[in-house]
Structures are given as C-alpha cells and as structure tokens.
C-alpha cells in the first residue's frame, strides 16, 4: 500500500506531504529561535549599564559571512530552478557552490572567529575599584559623551598561569585599544575595522576583579547568548550542508534519471530549510555584531 501524495499534490490542499512537513518543522524552528531571541531580549534589557559589551566582534568578517550565506541562498534556489528546467549539470554546479559556501561559513566561524575569542582575556573590575583603574577605563570621559560606562579591562593575558594559580595576585594584560587610549573619541563607539592591540601592559590586582575570564560563554550574558545562538545556528548550517552533500552525491543522479520531479522536490524542501537558516542569520548578524 502506497502512501498517497508523496510527490504529487493533494487536490484540496495543493501541497505534497513533505512540503507541509517542512513548513511545520520550520514553524517549530521559528519557536525554537524565538525562545532564544526572547532570552536575548530579556537578558539585554536586564543587563546593568556597561555589562552588555558592544563592538567585540569582528564586523568585516561577520559581513563577509553574511554575504556568503546570502550567496548560498541564491545558488540553492538556482539549483532548484535548474532541476525544474531539467538541466542536471547546472544543478550540480550550483549545488556544489552552495555546499562550498556552507563549509566556508562554518570554517570561518569555527577556525577563526570563535578561537580568536577564546584567546582574548577580560577582567571585570569591581565597582569599588573602578576609580583606581580610571586611566584604563575613561569613565568620566564616557559619562560626558552620554555613553555607557566601561567596566572591563581586556586584551591579551600575558601571564595565563594567573588564571589557575592562586599565589599570583595580578593579571598582566596587554591592552586592547579601548583600554590603552580610553580618552580617544574613536574608541567611544564600536568601529568597523577592529583597532589593533596596543603594546601597553596593565597590571590588574585580583582583589579588584569581579570576574576574570577569556571570551568564552561564561564571560557575560552577551557571550553566553552569542555562543549559544551562533552555535545552534552553526549546527543548522552543518545539518543543511550534510543534506546538500547527500543530494549532490551520485545518488541524486540515479534519482534524477528515475524521477527528476522528486529530486526537485527534495531540493526544494532542503532549500526551504536553508533559506530559513539564512533568515535567522539576517537577524543574528546585526543583533550581535552591530547593535
């Protein structure tokens, strides 16, 4: 006994099964990311002044990744169109590019963006000691300009053993530009090109530090949401790439010969998922990198 409407549309709904299935799945995905974004909203609104850092992510790289994802969305729809027009080699070509884009996106994320954060250090200063480190923070200057205060001294940790060794009482931090020249108005707002690190080294006493952490999820609610949402998004990209690779392998050629419309349907369903992943990124990018 066959299950009806696997490739052909049911007359009264005008849809075949998997198409309804994928839209329902995407509806649940909307709610999944909806839950995460509502956490983002809640935590960001709740953050104390200065505790939702901005300008810590690499905007040019983020922009490039956005462009890559958009390009892959275009190629996947072109791949589907090629199948609809029964141009199989074109389909293979576009699908290949889509897969490549997905992989590049993941590599940039996992091999560059995340590791560079994991090696960056920040020490949040206790409220009582903020005055002491004013030369690195420039809060008087920021207050004048109506900006949120700076509560963290960040840069490269020169003595990483201090993280674990209780007997070392100081962090030696090779400063980020913002802490090196806190009065420079260029550092008041996030910038497009990340400013190069200075050569200045600051010594921060552990007694004055509320929380010392690399730029890992633990660092702040900002990095917690950033890593969780981009991580989950990355898993979706990975899932999409795996499905596309399956649809690109020789299996697809055999299916194409047998039933091209069915391959087109499969690509359409996988493509819908891929566009959704793109759509999520369209919100992730400004929320974390820019705003």
């Amino acid at each position, binding site marked *: 006994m*066959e299950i*009806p*409407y*696997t*490739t*052909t*549309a*049911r*007359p009264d*709904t*005008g*849809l075949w099964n998997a*198409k*309804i299935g994928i*839209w*329902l799945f995407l*509806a649940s995905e*909307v*709610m999944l990311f*909806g*839950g995460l*974004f*509502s956490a983002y*909203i*809640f935590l960001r*609104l*709740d953050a104390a002044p200065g505790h939702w850092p901005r300008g810590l992510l690499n*905007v040019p790289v983020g*922009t490039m990744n*956005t*462009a890559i994802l*958009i*390009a892959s*969305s*275009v190629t996947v*729809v*072109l791949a589907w*169109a090629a199948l*609809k*027009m*029964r141009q199989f080699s074109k389909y293979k070509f576009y699908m290949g590019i889509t897969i490549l884009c997905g992989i590049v996106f993941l590599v940039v994320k996992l091999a560059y963006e995340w590791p560079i954060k994991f090696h960056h250090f920040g020490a949040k200063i206790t409220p009582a000691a903020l005055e002491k480190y004013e030369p690195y923070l420039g809060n008087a200057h920021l207050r004048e300009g109506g900006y949120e205060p700076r509560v963290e001294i960040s840069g490269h940790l020169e003595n990483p053993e201090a993280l674990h060794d209780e007997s070392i009482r100081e962090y030696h931090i090779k400063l980020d530009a913002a802490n090196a020249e806190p009065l420079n108005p260029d550092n008041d*707002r*996030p*910038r*497009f090109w990340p400013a190069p690190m200075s050569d200045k080294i600051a010594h921060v006493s552990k007694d004055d530090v509320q929380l010392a952490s690399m730029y890992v999820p633990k660092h702040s609610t900002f990095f917690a949401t950033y890593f969780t949402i981009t991580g989950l998004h990355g898993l979706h990209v990975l899932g999409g790439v795996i499905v596309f690779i399956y649809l690109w392998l020789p299996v697809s050629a055999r299916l194409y010969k047998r039933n091209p419309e069915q391959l087109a349907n499969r690509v359409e369903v996988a*493509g*819908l998922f891929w*566009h*959704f992943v*793109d*759509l999520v990124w*369209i*919100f992730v*990018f*400004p*929320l974390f990198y*820019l*705003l």
Partner: protein
Amino acid sequence: MNESNSPAASESVVQAHPEHDDHHDVSKHIKKYLMVGGLLMIFTIITVALSYFDFGSHKANIAVGMLVATFKAGLVAAIFMHLSAERHLVYQILIFTTFFVLVLFWLTYLAWYDPVVR
C-alpha cells in the same frame, strides 16, 4: 483503491492544475532570484553602514537595524521561500506561528517591564 487516494489519480489532478512553477515560469524567475540576491547584498552593506550612523539614541539605532533586517528577512521569505505565492495552508500555519512567537516576545518583555519591585 478509491479515486482521490490513488497516486495515479492525483497525478492526473495535478496535471489538470499545474503548479505555479512550471518549467517556463522557472526560467523567468531566475532573473528575479539574482536581483533579490543582489538587493540582499546591498542591504547588508546598508545595515552595516547605518549602525555607524547616530540616529540620536542607541534605541533608535536598534530599531532601524531591526527594520532593515526584517525587510531583508521578508525578501528571503517572499521570494526564495516562495511565500509570495504559496498555498493558503502554509499561510495559516505561519500566521499562528508568528502570532505566538510575538506573544512570547511581547509578554516576556511586558513581564520585564512591569515588576512589582525592581
């Protein structure tokens, strides 16, 4: 086998009512897809540029950024995901989903906004 349930029968039904993406139509759409892709690229650059422009307050910047992002997302959904010409059923599913996700945003915001004590 009853008529409407047999695959063969429904195939003939579909031939009688061809879907909007007929082979000829598809070739016409390609230009549109490329244009939308280009538009999305341009708007990505605009999003980045606008974030460095001061709209008076940070809140205003966020609002503008989200507006542009929503527009981009709308393009992806309408053109790439074919939502501009989809069956009613899909709209019905999505209307409910959108409503509930907005409820989730709005009510958690409201709960944050209106505590007994802060």
